[in-house]
Each structure stands twice: as structure tokens, then as C-alpha cells.
């Protein structure tokens, strides 16, 4: 037999309008959370027939007195240990609310489960034992409610029977916890004296608490407001994915705040690109008209082809989020190893992820201690403020401006290790995007391709220094031009002299260098030219970014000349300098070149002539639909 609480049917079928609120009950271990839950289920008539009798019988069989908390201790393992391990969701009704009750464990060992539960809540009940008073876990949970953004908090002072229902003791605890929460900016909605075991204060103001005039627990729950109104805030649509299942290119995501409709002028952050929403797609009926508001999962198409990727944020141009590589956050930490200055992390803001480095730590404390000293690192189950530097720019908001986008989680080794609120953002230098009005070309792509006899493309030559990329690029350029085409060479070193002169050779600068090359090349390709890029581009991830930007126009060629041949050639003397230690961050003599795994073509220039290599590239461009057959035939006849 199962010791489960079977919910009575809780939903609001057929569109009835009872608001649903999700609440969490938190507090120090053994202060009576599970007992209160059991009692609430009983008082609201939510227990299945015979359940109470059955539980009493099971208790008798085990030789234990009956406890209300048995209702929740559904797992065998829990009963063995006598503590609640995880969050269990239970549903019941008050007069005007459907309540989803998330039980969260009080044991310090299971703080990650408390956070998992409490993060889903609209409101919270913080429970305190009248005899023991405010304890470390009470304070810790209070602090976490603040960090999780739970603003409606009711306090219950339980086990009043153990202090003879003393109004004085109640006031003492009420004052202490109210002061603690007020300090965090949380104002309790009620402070209620109860005995969960006997029922006083839960659904009824009994004589024993006759001096108390406030709401009962059930009344307090009945007054909770459902989730915050996010629709009034600025539009934030974080992009989950771009789908091209058919001829539509759909940008998919969930509207976290604000609203949108077809025809809206939008900006894609952090890149700051402007577009208009063409349609709002759906299924089975599509497109949909009318405004789509916060909470909806939507798909939109745009009026122009832009490079957009997962994690970008779609916003309205005049209320765009800030673009940044640096931010400050107040976080809680759940990982065994304390978080220290200099640590490398993975940060997630919605679907956006970025590598990050902790550059400073402040106010690292144990929120359970009354007056704890500040530490240099943030220990497990502790909190603190951190400054982080991000390897990719992200778009975000301070949490005071947007509770949905102003929060982040931190991952260590693929597992969520902490999370918190964005306090402030160091905004980037970007021009205000509202002033940008892209002008589209007067010519259609097919007009150009009819003249050039080819489609636009990005031919990306990657390989070690001195592998022959530039030589090959120039030969290809000459050949395509001779055939009437419009090739344009973009050499990595040449562009570093001008466009990219602000960039060095750190990993972040190399990524930015590649991104700019890819953007310029893609712009040329969209306008019908064949952009030939010759760049070492050693990082696989950077080349993947280039491929995403250029999309179907991308043709990767790995110039795979053996390393010893490259070093022997050394036309610029770089290998010699690097061997002498005079050229830091030089790709070639280390193992830092990540060879492509699925290039469209691989060429070793040590085993063939430049003309033969150019033939192979031309053939590849022909078979992959860049060069038109006629153009190649024409070339053969010259």
C-alpha cells in the first residue's frame, strides 16, 4: 500500500476562474512543516476517504503514535530517517484559491531541494517553533526567499501549546523575525500563532489563542495573489531556438515579460540588429493575429534574414535590455567546493550561456548566522555578491527592473551549483539601437547571380600558419574573377591592420575577430559575392559561430598541410620567433589548433600544386551549388 496523499481534483476544468497559487512551507527542521501540511489537508477536506484511518492503523502497526506528518512521508526512505527529503506537491482548496502546496525540506543537508521547491512558489509560509524560536535555518530560509524573489511571506509560530499559548512569547518571536525579514526588504503578510498538532489557528481562531485577532493560516493562504503581472513590463523574448523545418524560419521562445504582435519593430540583443515581426506562427492554426503576452511560448518570423542564435533576446527597440560582458549578482551557493575569486564558471541567463570568471567576491556570509563575519569565498549553502566577467556579451536586466531576465544560474561540471539575482550591469558602448535603420540593397540576389553566374558564398580557409591559405585564396580569387565572377578576399592579417586593430590574441579577442570576419563575409555573400576568408581560426567553436552566421552560404576548407612542412616554409618568420619565445599566443607550435571534423573540403598543399588545389575547390563549389554549371563550362572553353 502506498502512503500517499491523493489530491482531490484540483484543476480548473472548463475554464473556471479560481486563481491558482503555489506556496511553499519552509523553516527549521522539526519546527512542524509536515505536521502543518497534514493538518491543512485535513481541515480543508482534501484527504481521500479512509486515508486518516489507514495511516493511524499503519502507525499502530509500527508501534508509533500517529503523526500528521506521516501523510507526506511518502517514501520508504523518508520514514526510515524521519526527515522529509524532497519537495512534494500537494493540492487543496481554500474558499477562493486553488493551492498547490510545495513541501520543502528543512534539513540543512537538503537546501538544494528547498530551493527547487521554493523557486516555483508565489508565496511562502515560514514556520517557527514557539519553544525554540528563530533558528539558523529560519534565517537562512528567510534570506533565500528574498533571493528567490518570493515576496509574499506569512509567518506561523507553531507549537503554541508548548508555551501555554503565551501572547508574550508570540510577540517576542514575531518581533525578531519581522526585524530580520524587514532588513531583507521582505514584509510578512501575517504572523499567526498556531498549534498544527491540535488545530488552533490553522482553520479556526480557538479560545486558547483568543488574544489573537489576525487571519488563520487558511485565511492567509486565501489572500495570496497569484503570479506577478509581467505583461506590463518591457518585452523580453529570449530565443530558445531557430527552426527551419519547412520554408519558414521561425524564432522560437517564451515571452518572459511584455507582449508582441506582428508588425512590431524589434531589436535582437546583444547584437543590436533591427527587424520587424512579420508573423506570429502557431499550430494547428497559423499565423495567429492579436497581441501575445508574457508566459506564452511563441514562434515569430521576421521581415529580413538576420543572424540570430539561441540565447539572444528579442525586445522592442526603445526598451531594449542592456548588453554587457560584466555584471554583479547576489547569489546562493550549493556546491561542495566554495566559490572563490578567479574561478571559471558557466553562467546561464535564460537560454543564453556564457563562460565567465569571478573577478571579485564581497559580502560572503552564512545567512543562518546572526552576525557572521565576511569570508573570501562563498561556502556551500552560503550567500554573497560576485562580480563576473563574461566571455560572450549577454543581454540582461537588473532584477529590480525585470524579475524574469534579471536572474542567473551557475553551472559547475554540468550541474547547477548556484543561482541569484542580477544587481547591476556594466552597459556596453553600443550605439543606442533605435538610431540604426538598416537599408536593404536595391538589387535582388538573382540579378547579381545572373551576371556573376554564381550564388553568394563564404569560402572559409582554415589551417596552421604557413599552410598555404593566403596563396590558395589568391589563386582562387584570380580564377573566379577570370570566369566573370565576383570574388573578394578577406585576409585575417589584413583585416587586423584596420577593422580589427583593436583586438589582440586572447581567446575572447580571437572569437571577436572571427565573428567580425564572418559578419563582413556574410554581408558580401548575401549581396552575391564570393567572400574568400583566409584565417588561421584555430578554435572549433569560433568556426562554428562563423558557420551559424553565414548559415547555408558557408563552405569550410581545411588547408591541412602537415605542421613540419608549415614550420619549414615559415615565410613570415613567425615559427622561428615563436620557438625563440618572442611571439606569445602563436598558433602552430603548440597543440592549440583544433582541426575541423566536417569541412566541405580538406587540402594538403604539400602533395599538390596550387592549380590542382584551386581545381578541387572549384569542383566543390560547383557540386555544392555555388558556381553555376554554365560558368564552369565557359571556363573550360577559354
Amino acid at each position: 500500500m502506498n502512503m500517499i496523499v491523493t489530491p482531490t481534483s484540483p484543476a480548473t476544468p472548463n475554464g473556471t476562474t479560481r486563481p491558482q497559487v503555489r506556496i511553499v512551507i519552509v523553516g527549521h527542521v522539526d519546527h512542524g512543516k509536515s505536521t502543518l501540511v497534514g493538518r491543512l489537508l485535513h481541515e480543508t477536506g482534501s484527504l481521500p476517504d479512509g486515508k486518516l484511518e489507514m495511516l493511524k492503523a499503519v502507525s499502530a502497526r509500527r508501534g508509533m503514535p500517529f503523526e500528521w506528518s506521516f501523510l507526506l512521508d511518502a517514501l520508504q526512505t523518508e520514514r526510515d530517517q524521519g526527515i522529509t527529503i524532497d519537495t512534494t506537491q500537494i493540492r487543496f482548496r481554500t474558499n477562493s484559491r486553488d493551492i498547490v502546496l510545495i513541501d520543502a525540506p528543512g534539513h540543512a543537508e537538503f537546501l538544494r531541494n528547498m530551493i527547487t521547491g521554493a523557486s516555483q512558489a508565489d508565496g511562502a509560509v515560514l514556520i517557527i517553533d514557539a519553544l525554540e524560536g528563530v533558528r539558523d535555518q529560519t534565517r537562512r530560509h528567510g534570506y533565500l526567499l528574498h533571493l528567490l524573489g518570493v515576496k509574499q511571506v506569512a509567518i506561523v509560530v507553531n507549537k503554541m501549546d508548548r508555551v501555554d499559548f503565551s501572547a508574550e512569547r508570540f510577540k517576542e518571536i514575531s518581533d525578531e523575525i519581522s526585524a530580520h525579514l524587514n532588513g531583507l526588504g521582505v514584509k510578512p503578510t501575517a504572523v499567526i500563532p498556531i498549534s498544527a498538532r491540535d488545530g488552533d489557528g490553522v482553520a479556526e481562531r480557538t479560545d486558547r489563542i483568543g488574544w489573537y485577532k489576525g487571519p488563520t493560516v487558511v485565511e492567509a493562504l486565501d489572500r495570496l495573489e497569484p503570479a506577478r503581472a509581467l505583461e506590463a513590463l518591457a518585452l523580453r523574448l529570449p530565443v530558445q531556438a531557430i527552426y527551419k523545418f519547412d520554408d519558414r524560419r521561425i524564432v522560437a521562445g517564451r515571452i518572459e515579460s511584455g507582449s508582441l504582435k506582428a508588425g512590431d519593430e524589434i531589436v535582437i540583443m546583444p547584437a543590436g540588429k533591427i527587424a520587424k515581426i512579420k508573423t506570429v506562427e502557431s499550430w494547428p492554426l497559423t499565423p495567429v493575429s492579436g497581441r501575445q503576452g508574457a508566459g506564452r511560448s511563441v514562434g515569430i518570423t521576421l521581415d529580413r534574414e538576420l543572424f540570430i542564435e539561441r540565447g539572444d533576446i528579442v525586445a522592442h527597440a526603445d526598451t531594449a535590455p542592456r548588453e554587457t560582458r560584466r555584471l554583479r549578482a547576489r547569489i546562493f551557493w550549493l556546491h561542495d567546493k566554495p566559490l572563490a575569486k578567479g574561478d571559471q564558471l558557466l553562467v546561464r541567463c535564460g537560454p543564453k550561456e556564457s563562460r565567465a570568471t569571478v573577478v571579485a567576491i564581497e559580502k560572503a556570509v552564512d545567512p543562518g548566522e546572526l552576525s557572521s563575519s565576511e569570508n573570501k569565498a562563498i561556502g556551500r549553502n552560503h550567500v554573497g555578491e560576485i562580480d563576473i566577467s563574461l566571455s560572450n556579451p549577454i543581454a540582461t536586466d537588473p532584477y529590480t527592473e525585470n524579475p524574469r531576465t534579471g536572474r542567473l544560474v551557475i553551472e559547475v561540471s554540468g550541474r547547477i551549483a548556484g543561482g541569484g539575482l542580477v544587481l547591476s550591469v556594466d552597459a556596453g558602448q553600443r550605439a543606442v539601437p533605435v538610431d540604426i535603420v538598416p537599408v536593404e540593397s536595391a538589387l535582388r540576389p538573382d540579378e547579381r547571380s545572373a551576371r556573376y553566374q554564381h550564388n553568394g558564398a563564404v569560402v572559409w580557409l582554415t589551417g596552421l600558419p604557413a599552410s598555404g591559405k593566403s596563396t590558395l585564396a589568391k589563386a582562387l580569387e584570380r580564377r573566379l574573377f577570370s570566369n566573370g565572377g565576383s570574388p573578394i578576399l578577406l585576409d585575417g592579417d589584413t583585416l587586423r591592420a584596420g577593422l580589427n586593430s583593436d583586438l589582440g590574441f586572447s581567446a575572447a579577442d580571437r572569437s571577436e575577430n572571427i565573428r567580425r570576419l564572418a559578419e563582413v563575409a556574410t554581408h558580401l555573400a548575401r549581396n552575391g559575392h564570393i567572400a574568400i576568408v583566409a584565417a588561421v581560426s584555430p578554435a572549433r567553436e569560433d568556426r562554428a559561430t562563423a558557420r551559424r552566421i553565414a548559415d547555408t552560404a558557408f563552405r569550410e576548407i581545411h588547408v591541412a598541410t602537415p605542421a613540419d612542412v608549415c614550420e619549414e616554409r615559415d615565410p613570415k618568420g613567425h615559427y622561428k620567433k615563436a620557438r625563440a619565445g618572442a611571439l606569445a599566443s602563436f598558433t602552430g607550435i603548440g597543440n592549440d589548433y583544433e582541426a575541423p571534423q566536417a569541412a566541405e573540403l580538406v587540402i594538403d598543399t604539400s602533395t599538390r600544386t596550387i592549380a590542382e588545389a584551386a581545381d578541387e575547390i572549384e569542383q566543390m563549389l560547383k557540386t555544392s551549388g555555388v558556381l553555376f554549371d554554365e560558368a564552369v563550362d565557359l571556363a573550360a572553353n577559354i
Partner: protein
Amino acid sequence: MDHLDQLEAQSIYIFREAFARLKKIALLWSLGKDSNVMIWLARKAFFGKMPFPALHVDTGKKFPEMYRFRDHYGKEWDLDLRVEPCPPIDAVDPTLPPAARSAARKTEGLKMALAKYGFDGLIAGIRRDEEATRAKERVFSPRGLEGNWDVRDQPPEFWDHFNASPPQGAHLRIHPILHWTEADIWAYTKRENIPIIPLYLAKDGKRYRSLGDQDITNPVNSTASTIDEILIELEQTKVPERAGRALDHETEDAFERLRVAGYL
């Protein structure tokens, strides 16, 4: 947005996260009301066609109506349907009670399918309100190399951020309708006009609330012959949904043992 709109939007968000963050996923199609709602939600998430396989781990002991349903809608919904068999009963832990042992066959069949295709994510239609151990689940729930579930060491999951990095060789279970209830499923099925197997509707005073293998699933007493009547019945009943599932009731911990070993 009403209650069903909110549930739908959240499920779509989960589907899209799973598709974006995992390499090779499949949806476990049990042919029941919950997994049919899941397929519907997946088609909404991906604008018409589910872009990954529907996996039916077939015990060979389902009701004939269920097989007819599978063959018909597998085609009509344009599913990439993979039907995988389960091993014979002799291959399953003999210390389990009979019905649980029968259900454990399905776990073995699932492991065989996982080994065959190398999925790193399986989408399953379990709900928190069905059963107490399911209430403890995460939306993205990591499984060990043996497909097992470590309920004591579940990673934290909050603000719709999911742990989506299973260790090499292990997989994740993804639960897009974990937050739905039985009544939600029926109200949504009605609103969206999703096809159902007629066994759910009362005939001669009985209907199935939950469909499993023929030999270990029993109908409940009911006169609800339409979805509207089912919704009214659910408003009043205090009988658990899985009351007709023999395996839940054999011993106090049989179901938990099954789930720890990798059952749904």
C-alpha cells in the same frame, strides 16, 4: 492566459529546451491519454511535426484498441514510430511481486532500446499528481549508467533552468507534463479535440482511468461516457488514478523500487 494556456506554454518551453540541449532524444509513447497530450504539445512546440522519434516499448500485452490507435495515429500524425519489444518474463528480477515483475519487463525493454539507439534523453509523460514518488521528480531527471534514479542526490532545478548534461553513456528523463493533473489532461484533451482510446469512456458501468498491460490493469466503476462526465467524476472522486494498476498496491515500496531501477 487561462490555466490550460499556462500549462501548455510551460510544456512547450520544456520540449524546446530538451530539443536544443540534448543530442538524441525520443518520446516514450505509451498510447495513453497523457502521452497523446504530450505528442500534441510537441507538435505545437515544433509547429506541426515532432522532430524526433516516438518510441513504443511494447510488452505485447496491450489492449487491441491500443494497437489500433497506435497504427492509425502513428501515420496520421506523421510520427517517426519505433516499436521495440520487451524481453521474456524469465529475464526479470524474480523477487518482485507478480505485477511489478511484469512491469519491470518494460524497464528492461527500455534499457534494450536505449542501448540500441543511444538516446541521451527520453521524454516521459509522468505527472506529479499520479503517485507520490513521481511527485519528487525533477523536470530533467538524470539517470545513472544502469538507467537508475538516485532520489537522494537529485540536482537542484529552479527558474526553468535544467540540468541537461548527462554523463557519457547515461541518459536523462524529461518530463514535460510533470506539472499537469489528471483533470488538466482531460480538460486539454477536450479543448484541443485530441483523439482518445474509447476504453477511457464508461461502458456497462466501467471505464479505465489509466491504461497499462491487459493482465495488470482493471477498470473502475463509472458512468462517465464523455470527457465532460469524466471531468465531473474527477471533481467528486477520492479514488486514486492508479487504483486500477495492480503493481502500485502489492507492497508498500514496490513502486519505488521499480522507479529507482529505472521504471517510468
